[in-house]
């Protein structure tokens, strides 16, 4: 992973960048145990500080960006990353919708700082956590908290093959039906965000007898108000309805709007 030109000179140069996040999405790349070395042969992994100490050098053919923008420094750094990148793909809920840390967007960040830190005056942070696309042009957004590693391999392969990634934009509901799961909401009355949530996880939660909690963010054309009526019928109060949309993709438009409909 040195970028020292061990590979054919034509191998595309990959960089992996991190902004405010848990490192989980870039870890997905290291979790591709069977594919990692193949990826490393097809690409020159030129900058990936979680995995290698090679320095930032020059420009990159593909940048994978994890994390959201939460500091003035990062707001400038993402501009530099964009300038150095031929293609820029965001990976994960933080980079595509602001992440769990975007809960500050609904609160006063000074209150948050004073709850966590004895000296909030030492903390330099923005009042908001925003997705990468709020700052620079993004070529493709891969959803998920965390991303699905099979989808990550698809996105990297499609980049190498110069084609559009095939990642579905329909709802978790459809994946659940395809999997042959019994509907947890219809059969058991378990509240589930599956009808409005973007596919990608393989309908994981319903497969484990739990309702979807929305970690891939809103599907392409969600009808959240309609789902909320059903969730209310199952016993969720306004406070619970607001919270259910306000988790790892709270700043994604459809979830934000629906959560705000249930603000006092």
């Amino acid at each position, binding site marked *: 992973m*040195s970028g020292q030109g061990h590979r054919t000179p034509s191998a595309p140069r990959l960089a992996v960048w991190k*902004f405010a996040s848990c490192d989980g999405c870039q870890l997905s790349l290291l979790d591709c145990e069977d594919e990692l070395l193949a990826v490393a042969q097809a690409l020159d992994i030129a900058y990936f500080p*979680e995995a290698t100490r090679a320095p930032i050098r020059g420009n990159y053919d593909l940048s994978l960006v994890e994390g959201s923008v939460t500091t003035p420094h990062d707001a400038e750094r993402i501009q530099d990353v964009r300038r150095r990148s031929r293609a820029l793909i965001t990976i994960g809920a933080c980079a595509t919708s602001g992440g*769990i*840390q975007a809960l500050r967007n609904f609160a006063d960040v000074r209150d948050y700082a004073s709850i966590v830190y004895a000296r909030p005056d030492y*903390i330099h942070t923005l009042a908001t956590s925003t997705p990468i696309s709020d700052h620079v042009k993004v070529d493709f957004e891969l959803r998920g908290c965390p991303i699905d590693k099979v989808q990550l391999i698809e996105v990297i392969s499609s980049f190498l093959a110069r084609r559009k990634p095939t990642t579905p934009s329909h709802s978790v509901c459809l994946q659940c039906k395809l999997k042959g799961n019994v509907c947890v909401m219809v059969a058991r009355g378990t509240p589930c965000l599956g009808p409005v949530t973007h596919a990608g996880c393989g309908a994981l939660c319903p497969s484990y007898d*739990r309702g979807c909690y929305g970690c891939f963010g809103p599907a392409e054309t969600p009808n959240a108000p309609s789902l909320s009526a059903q969730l209310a019928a199952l016993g969720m109060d306004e406070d619970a309805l607001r919270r259910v949309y306000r*988790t790892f993709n709270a700043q994604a438009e459809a979830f934000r709007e629906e959560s705000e409909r249930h603000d006092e």
Partner: protein
Amino acid sequence: MTSRTISVGALARVEGEGGLEIVLRDGEVKSAALTIFEPPRFFEALMRGRAFTEAPDIAARICGICPVAYQMSAVHAMEDALGVRVTGPLRDLRRLLYCGEWIESHMLHVHMLHMPDFLGYAGGVDMARDHGDIVRRGLAIKKVGNEIMTLVGGREIHPINVRVGGFYRAPRKRDLRALAERLERALEQALQVARFVAGFDFPDCARDYVFVSLRHADEYPFNEGRIVSSRGLDIAARDFETHFEEFHVQRSTALHARMRHCDAPYLVGPLARYALNADVLSPLAKEAAREARLESVCVNPYRSIIVRAIETIFALDEALRIIARYEEPDASCIAIAPRAGVGHAATEAPRGMLYHRYRLEADGTIADAIITPPTSQNQAMIEEDLKRLTGAFVHLPEDELRHRCEQTVRNHDPCISCSTHFLRLEIDRG
């Protein structure tokens, strides 16, 4: 007087972002500072107002590399507040999930993050060009850890199956049994890894550490136990805040921690766990430690890579033991009624002890949360290590010295995202 500053911009092969600055004066290390500039994410604040049931999913997002540790600390603290105790197969399943995380995290650190320092490579993929079989072996063991996480937890990063009181769905006996053969194979490979890393060329050094870890009478600790130290501390998790405190320094978005009354830095993690619990390792792990010539208390931080390999052997062994005796529980979860209360828990993340405390309202809403991750606790000790260990290397050329400093930090596998919070090296030689 000649002086210089050595700085590492962004420390590589660690989780999260940070830097370090070392000031040298007349060939001696004057000061060493770890600066964690990971943007703050305010988890303790955003927990407020959420239901107790939501804490495991939210806490997992603190760290992508040890989400199980955060989930386990959260569920145990909640159960403490709500007067519930999880026993039998559900408790075993939690230990099994923890085995998966230790195997996955330790093998990632050993092969991709730490081993390249000993063999002279920038990273694991680089190293794979000359040592393909070694890297593939490490990844194969790691993969089995991830398979445990996926089967028990639903997925390897941010498992979805953990809940206060147990699990959403208990795995089938036959699904777990199907893992046993791959675990046996991984165990054979892990024994080879321990032999291999034991043969590395380690800098000769010894540090006078105060070790802190959990201690359980008859188990190597994951989820439960008393908090003990190498200096005789022996307390329940609920007394953590009486004996330890976090404080805030200007250069870091991660809080530091120290022991009250003695103002001394302390060390959590594999070295501490091993020093305080080696007697309850499995016979196979004990045998592997003997074969690797691991002293009963290891005070050379560079040798922590051996301890991680031994703990991986233990985790594989333990996983096999749990799977062999597993019987599917009648229910995947204990029913829980909310009530007001305060709950505490400490568990052992791969990189060290983690403490959570929650106060709940009568309806189960979180009123406040305290989360003390391992990296915060180790930060002061890592700075001590830099101060004491890099002194022997100051004659080295800048590049080598910088590399040695980075390695000294990586010994402790600090997780900076955890500290909600890792590394840049600046060396000031004046």
